[in-house]
């Protein structure tokens, strides 16, 4: 892959920081590799999809999830940085929820992994608050005029995750099959869960 000059400079700066902190004994050798592997491979939207599928199939779990998101998510073994204060908001035929972080990129890592690049884009961060209906339509989710759109601005205190509507025609599916229909974008609120 081609590297541009600026990217080389950035790579040097990042490597300089890492090697300096390793020399000082502040970062254990191998710790950075392990963290990157974890966030690239293990922590991601599949965790959130399992949470959603459980909520669709277990009404008691759904109630617990909406009452205390972080605790219900921890029941399934998911937790860690950025997961301490997750609030789950439920989509219904009348209300559609969408999540943003206007100030930076707060995001519930343990259930969704790291945010996609467009979530960090200033255009998304500013526009989805001002004109959510237009932004959602541009992203492929046109909503009827009667649907109320609620925009949730994540913060240091609270990170939001959307519980999407269960798609029609999924009555016979088990939790694993349902989880496969739940995309990251559906849990941010810029898409629906996939049809079976």
């Amino acid at each position, binding site marked *: 892959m081609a590297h541009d000059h600026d990217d080389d400079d950035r790579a040097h700066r990042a490597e300089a*920081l890492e090697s300096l902190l390793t020399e*000082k004994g502040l970062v254990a050798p191998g710790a950075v590799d392990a963290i990157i592997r974890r966030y690239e491979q*293990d922590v991601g939207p599949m965790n959130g999809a399992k949470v959603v599928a459980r909520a669709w199939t277990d009404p008691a779990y759904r109630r617990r999830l909406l009452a205390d998101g972080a605790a219900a998510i921890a029941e399934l073994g998911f937790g860690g940085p950025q997961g301490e204060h997750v609030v789950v908001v439920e989509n219904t035929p009348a209300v559609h929820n969408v999540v943003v972080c206007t100030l*930076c990129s707060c995001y519930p890592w343990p259930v969704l992994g790291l945010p996609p690049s467009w979530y960090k884009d200033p255009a998304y961060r500013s526009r989805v608050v001002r004109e959510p209906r237009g932004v959602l339509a541009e992203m492929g989710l046109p909503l009827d005029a009667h649907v109320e759109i609620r925009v949730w601005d994540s913060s240091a205190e609270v990170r939001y995750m959307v519980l999407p509507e269960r798609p029609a025609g999924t009555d016979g599916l088990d939790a694993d099959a349902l989880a496969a229909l739940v995309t990251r974008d559906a849990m941010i609120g810029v898409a629906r869960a996939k049809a079976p």
Partner: protein
Amino acid sequence: MTTARVPDVSGPAAPPRRNGELVFASPWESRIFGVTLALLEADRFTWDEFRARLIAALARSADGEKYYDSWTVALEELLVEKGICTAAEISANERVLAARPPGHDHRDPVGR
């Protein structure tokens, strides 16, 4: 202003990741993220301390700067404020790394 586009992460071009998406655009982005998380996990600072500086750096950033540029600025500022290292130390180390012969100055991808 460009419109945020949703990448197709489920199609045939999706990278081989269990969770569907490659989250870093360049290896250096993953390194700076990993270093920050390693320091957080070692309780060198809190997420809120870092986040406050990230917000400030993003607010100051010019068009065309990358998200992880602001992240790097925020981390360096916090390290200096905490007395963990100085900007001069980082720069000195950077000059040493940049002076290596060609072919030795790119980090290999993670997981080699």
